[in-house]
Structure formats: C-alpha cells, structure tokens
C-alpha cells in the first residue's frame, strides 16, 4: 500500500485497551442466550438430582437424551439454518411423517434400503425446495409457504397409507437397536447420525462461505445483496437443507418406532422451533449457533425426562416449553431493542 503519514496515535475513536472480559463479550456477545440455555440445562440437572434424590445425573439418563431425541436434534439442525436466514419452517413435523411413511412403504414393497433411504431424503428435500421457491421467487412469507409444505407433507403421509406400516428391514432396525457402550455411556447409531449431522452443520455454518452467507442474510438481506452475496440461492438451499433434515429425521424416527405412522410429528415443528430458540438462536435471524440448538434439544429432552420421572402431567411440558420460549423471546427482544438504540 501507499506511504502513509505516521505521526499520529494508532487508536480508534472509542477503543482503549480492552480487558479479557470485554474482548470476550465483544467477540461472543451473541452467545449469551446459548450460555443461558447451558445454565438452564445445568439447573435442570441439579434440580432433577435434588428432586429424585441422586438418581438423575447418571450416564444412562444423559445417554437416553440422545437415544430418544435423535430425530428432534436433526430437525432442530435443519430448522437452525432456516431461522438463521430469518425464515421459519413449519413443515418439518409432517415432512418427517411423510418420509417415514414413504420409507416404510418402499421397504415393505421389498425395495432395498439403498433405494428407500435416498428416496426419503429426496422426498424431504423436494418439499424444502417447493417452500424455498415460494419464499424466494414468489415473495411468499416463509410462514405461509412452509404452511403449504405442512399440509402437503401431512396429506402425502396419509396418501402413502392411512395406517402405520411396520418396518422389518434389519438395516433400519439396526440403527436404533444397536447399543454401543462406552463405560456406562450408551449410544445408538441414530445418535451418532444426529451428532454427525450437528458436526457437519456446525462446520458448514461457521467455516464455509455458504454458511456465512446464511448469517449475513439473517443480519440484513439487503446488505447481503449489496455485498454481492448469493442471497436467493442460499435462502432456497436453507429450506432444502431443512427438508432433507426432516427426511433424515423420518428415517431416525422410523428406526426408533419400528414403523412409519402417518400421525407422527404433529406439532413437532413447534418443538423444533422451541428447541432452536431456547438454544439461543434469534427468531429474527442472523444470530445463533447450531450447537446451541443441540443444547436446546437437550433442555427439551431433560424437561420431558424429569416430568416422566416425577409422574407429572405431560401438560406441564407444553407450559414449561411455552414459558421458556416466551422468556427467550422477551430477552431477545430486549437485546435487539438495545442494538437498535445504539444505531
């Protein structure tokens, strides 16, 4: 670069020498809600431990979270992509039911896993693409577009069959029945698939240009466009990813329940959204972490486990999750309001 005048202090207008804490906050301030989710998770564990007199915090309880909620984790990962762009995907529950049915039907018809599983993923991706095109090319609000996807998925699930279809394919059953033990810890192949999904998502979101574009769109679509980022393509891709994840979740849930059932996943989209929001992702987009969504799923699972342990009404589940959602939304609203005040 060209020569510069040097006789002046090298400091910006408002920057002093920051402390470690300040540096951390300025770099990772957006993680605060995720930390809050971790804190809530820890509190839940401690609470469970106290109420259940030392019978709660043990490897099996924690292992079970992943065994029972692998499908929800995968859904939450896909949902995180969509919410980060500032959108929402209501279709995931019914897409999961549809792909589960589709897979079960194909297997029951004697087709090999090598065809059934890709068909499930493609089925999910296709509905995601449908939603993405409505959103991007026709300017339909994500809520409404994914609503059409929800109807579509649910109806298709029933068109495959009105009743549940049993799955006897050993490869699919193996996914859930295999217990891999590490000491007292247990994990199933479904859990491993879910964790791999999280890992891939984290890599894509943080270390690829596509991932950063997702964040940029959520921050400001207009700015992202002015910066020359590929906004349209990326937004559609987010919905396709969410649809594909729903397809994968269909596989995991089928493995978990040994069957495809057309009524699976009614309202699950709300659970997935709640998990993502509790995990610290802003519903307005642009801020959040896929690892946070994982914490959110664990918070969700832990609450459910505690309620089961206590023999309390399942109704509390919805109320607690709803309240947590409200809490996080209000906190996020405050954060956003503060950020706007600064501008």
């Amino acid at each position, binding site marked *: *670069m*060209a020569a*510069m*005048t040097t006789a*002046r202090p*090298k*400091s*910006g*207008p*408002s*920057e002093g020498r*920051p402390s470690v804490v300040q*540096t951390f*906050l*300025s*770099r*990772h*301030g*957006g993680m605060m809600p995720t930390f809050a989710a971790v804190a809530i998770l820890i509190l839940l564990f401690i609470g469970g431990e106290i109420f259940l007199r030392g019978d709660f915090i043990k490897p099996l309880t924690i292992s079970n979270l992943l065994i029972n909620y692998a499908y929800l984790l995968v859904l939450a990962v896909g949902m995180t992509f969509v919410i980060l762009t500032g959108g929402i995907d209501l279709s995931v529950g019914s897409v999961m039911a549809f792909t589960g049915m589709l897979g079960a039907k194909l297997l029951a018809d004697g087709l090999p896993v090598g065809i059934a599983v890709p068909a499930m993923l493609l089925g999910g991706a296709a509905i995601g693409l449908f939603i993405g095109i409505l959103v991007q090319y026709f300017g339909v609000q994500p809520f409404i577009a994914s609503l059409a996807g929800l109807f579509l998925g649910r109806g298709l699930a029933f068109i495959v069959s009105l009743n549940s279809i049993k799955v006897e394919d050993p490869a699919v059953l193996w996914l859930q029945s295999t217990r891999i033990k590490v000491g007292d810890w247990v994990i199933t192949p479904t859990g491993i698939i879910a964790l791999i999904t999280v890992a891939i998502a984290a890599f894509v979101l*943080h*270390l*690829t*240009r596509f991932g*950063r*574009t997702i*964040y*940029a769109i*959520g*921050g*400001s679509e*207009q*700015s*992202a466009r*002015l*910066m*020359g*980022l590929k906004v349209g393509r990326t937004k559609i891709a987010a919905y396709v990813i969410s649809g594909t994840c729903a397809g994968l979740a269909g596989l995991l849930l089928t493995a978990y329940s040994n069957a495809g059932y057309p009524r699976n996943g009614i309202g699950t989209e709300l659970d997935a959204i709640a998990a993502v929001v509790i995990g610290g992702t802003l519903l307005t987009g*642009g*801020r959040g972490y896929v690892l946070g969504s994982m914490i959110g799923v664990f918070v969700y699972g832990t609450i459910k486990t505690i309620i089961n342990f206590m023999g309390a009404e399942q109704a509390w589940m919805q109320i607690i999750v709803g309240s947590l959602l409200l809490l996080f939304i209000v906190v996020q609203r405050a954060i956003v309001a503060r*950020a706007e005040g*600064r*501008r």
Partner: protein
Amino acid sequence: MDEVRPLLELTGATVRFGADAALDRVDFRLYPGEVHSLMGENGAGKSTLIKAITGALAMDEGELRLAGERVSFATPHEAQASGISTVYQEIELLPNLSVAENVFLGREPRRGGVVSRRLMRERAAAVLEDLGLTLDPASLLGTHSVAVQQLVAIARAISADVRVLVLDEPTSSLDLDEVAELFRVIRELKARGVAILFVSHFLDQVYELADRITVLRDGELVGEYLTGELLRIDLVQKMLGREIGEVRARGRVSEDDAEDGSAAVLRARGVSVAHGVAGADVDLAEGEVLGVAGLLGSGRTSLAHALTGVAHLESGVIRIESTDARLDSPRHAISLGVVYSSENRRRDGIVAELSVVDNITLALQSERGVFRRIPPARRRELAASWVDALDIRPPDLDRPVGTLSGGNQQKVLLARLLALSPRVLVLDEPTRGIDVGAKVEIQNLVSELADNGMSVVFISAELEEVLRVGDRVAVMRDGRIVETVAAADLTTDSLLALVAQPGEGED
C-alpha cells in the same frame, strides 16, 4: 488538474420515474486523487446520481466511462468489482457478524475451500491498521459505535482494489471527533490517488474537505465549481435556486402580539429533541404564519416533531393557549388543536389504499372515537366540501389516494388536518415535489387560513416561499433557531446569508 483525464465520467445521465425525470441530462466527472462534493437539496437527484454510478439503478439515457472505457453496471456488486465502492449513510453492514467478516464477506480468504478465520482476522487487522484503527477484528460489528462501523465500511470498500469511493452522507450521525477521524482517513485515501465522491449536507465539512463541488437542483445540473472559487452564499443560492416572480410579504403582521408572546397561541421554550433540535424558542400568535428556513439537517423537521408530539422532548416546555402541555403523542397534540403534516407524504402521511373520503375523515374520526362514527352521508359531504374547496382532482371521493398526483395527495392531507379545525397547523415542506400550480394554491391557502385566524408553522427549503408565506421567519442552523426576523425586513438575499452562515463552534 485539467491535464489529467477524469477517472470517472458520466455524460447526459437521465433517469425517469414515470413521466418525471429524477435526473435530467446530468454530466459529472471525478478525477483521481480529488474529493468531489455533490450538493443539492432533497429531491435534487443526488441519490439518483450515486445510484446511477454504482449500478443500483439503470439509467434511461447517458453513458458512464471509467478510465476512459465505457462501462455499465447491472448491480452494485459489478461496480465494486470494477473498483467503485460505496459507503452509505445507513450503514449497509451486518452487525451480527465480526468486523473481519464485514470487511471480507463474499471474498473471504479460504484454504482448501474452508474459510480461514485466522487469515481473515490478520488481513482485516492489516486493512484497519492501514486506516489507523486498532480494534479487535474478531469482535462483533454491532458492539462498536456508529463511527467505528462507518470506518469499517470504508475498510471494506478499500480492502478491494478501490479506485472510486462514494461516501453518501457519511457524517450525519457522527460527532465532531469522529468526523475528524473520518476526514483523516479520507485525506489519506485521496493522497493514494483514490477518487472520492463526498456527499454531505454540512457546508462546513464540504468546504473543509472538497476540492470541487457539483451542484444539482430538481434533477438538473446547475454547475461544477472549484471549492476555492465558490462563495458559500453562492453555493447555497445555487442549491436552493431562485424563482422569478415578485416576493410579496403578507400584509398583516401581528408584531405586537408576537414580540412579548403574551397572546401566543403556541409558545415553546428551550425545546430539545435528541439529535435534532436544541433549545429552540418559538412564539406563534393567532393568525400568524411563522416561516422556518434552514438547510437540510438544520433541525427544521425535528422542530416540527417537537411541537406536535411526534418526537419525545428531551427538555423544554410547550404552552398551548395558556396551559402547559406535555405532548406525549400526535393524538394528544391534536386534542389540543396542534396538527402536523409530514414532509414524507407517502410514508407518514397518506394511507395509500384507502379512499379520498377515508383519508380526509381519518383524523376527525379518530378524534371522535371509534364508536361515534361520522354518518356516511356526513362523511361524504364533508369530504366533498374539502375536495371542492381545495380543488382536489380528480374529484372522485372513492378513489384510492395512492393513485392521485403528489399535489393532490398533499391537498388530501391538508383537508384531513383542516377538518379538525385546528388552531395551529405545522406544515413540513408541504409543497415539495408537487407541480407549480398546486404549489401556488397551497401557498395561497395558507395565507387565507392565517387571515381567518389560524396559526401556521411553515417549513420549506425554498426561501422565496418562506418569505412569501411567512409573517416572520425563524432561521435554523445546526439544530438551533439562530434568529427570528420579520419577513418584511428580509430579502431573499439577506435570508440566504442567514441560512448559509457558518455554524458556530464548528470551525
């Protein structure tokens, strides 16, 4: 300078929106290593010109040459790739991402397809260092002040191979120290040979920084001048233009009442609004028109907001008739007889999809309350009488207001406010962007209303108009009312001098 070829040359640029030309055969040139300022009031075509250069808008006619070669950009991104970067007034960056990402987004350094955060941080630090900034490249952009964000935007612009840097009102939300910091950076870039287009409505800043000035008015080129050869007062005159026609001050001036403020209908003392107006005093007598003159950014709109409950008062008191009023909403102000017409007719004025009747009766109906509905026959009668009185065309009561011309939309808005039988009418640029006929009608209407006892605050960027309509004129600069003078004692030139004077404390 003339031996050097211009780096960027725009000739015959024309941009039309419908029948109106927002830019009419404008020429503009920019040399390497100069700061060139683009001046003009609202609607002069500054933004349109910038958009034409940066590819945000397609020109209907005209050609753009960069380093002698003819170019045309379909998107801002294409312009950027050719070395034309823009920093907008509203920072077009992403507060949710790190400083380094904001500098490099879209062209992140990668290793084997993977974004290298470390490399990105190092390079960002280098670019920032170049601008004399030490800030943590990994910190989130949103955690920094607007000034720093502005500098990061510049860092983004120059981190690519930049030849032309467009700065659109970069200083509007900065304080003095921050402006100084920005100017230091701009001068360095200039020394490196970057051509800089600098748009600002602060005259002091323009005179401090710019080598040359191009003035636009109503979408047309007024001229290009060397800053050293253009007197400030001449610049302002060129920006505001001058209409031919006699300036007729209104006949009646109630100076006695106005001077001591005892009979004031509205009296404001020390009124301040954050980032807008500071310590303004206003006295408005019955039947008086107070013109408000000032350049864009002088605080004229903030003053209107302060008087009408639109903006929250930081300090000061407003007394309407003889009671102190803490105006907390436009509704409250309306209930006290003070009504406001916004300068932004489409955004803050009309309800575009509703009919003329609905728009005219909107405020009156809200004042009466939801359940005391004005009977339909009465509504139509009322609206029809206003359509007739103000000559709103076409005289179709059921037409959606959004389909009317600007002047007629303005008249509908006036009708809405007048239907409230207000005591104080605050009009913010009521004649902006409307045709000459409607303009004169509105000016005459204001005089007529005042003759009938209504008090009016009339804000306009056009000095002739302020003089013609106002009994007294409040001159605003830098958020303050610097002087209030009887219109009869002013000429366009003397008012021009008052408006254009350098602000105190800035030099």
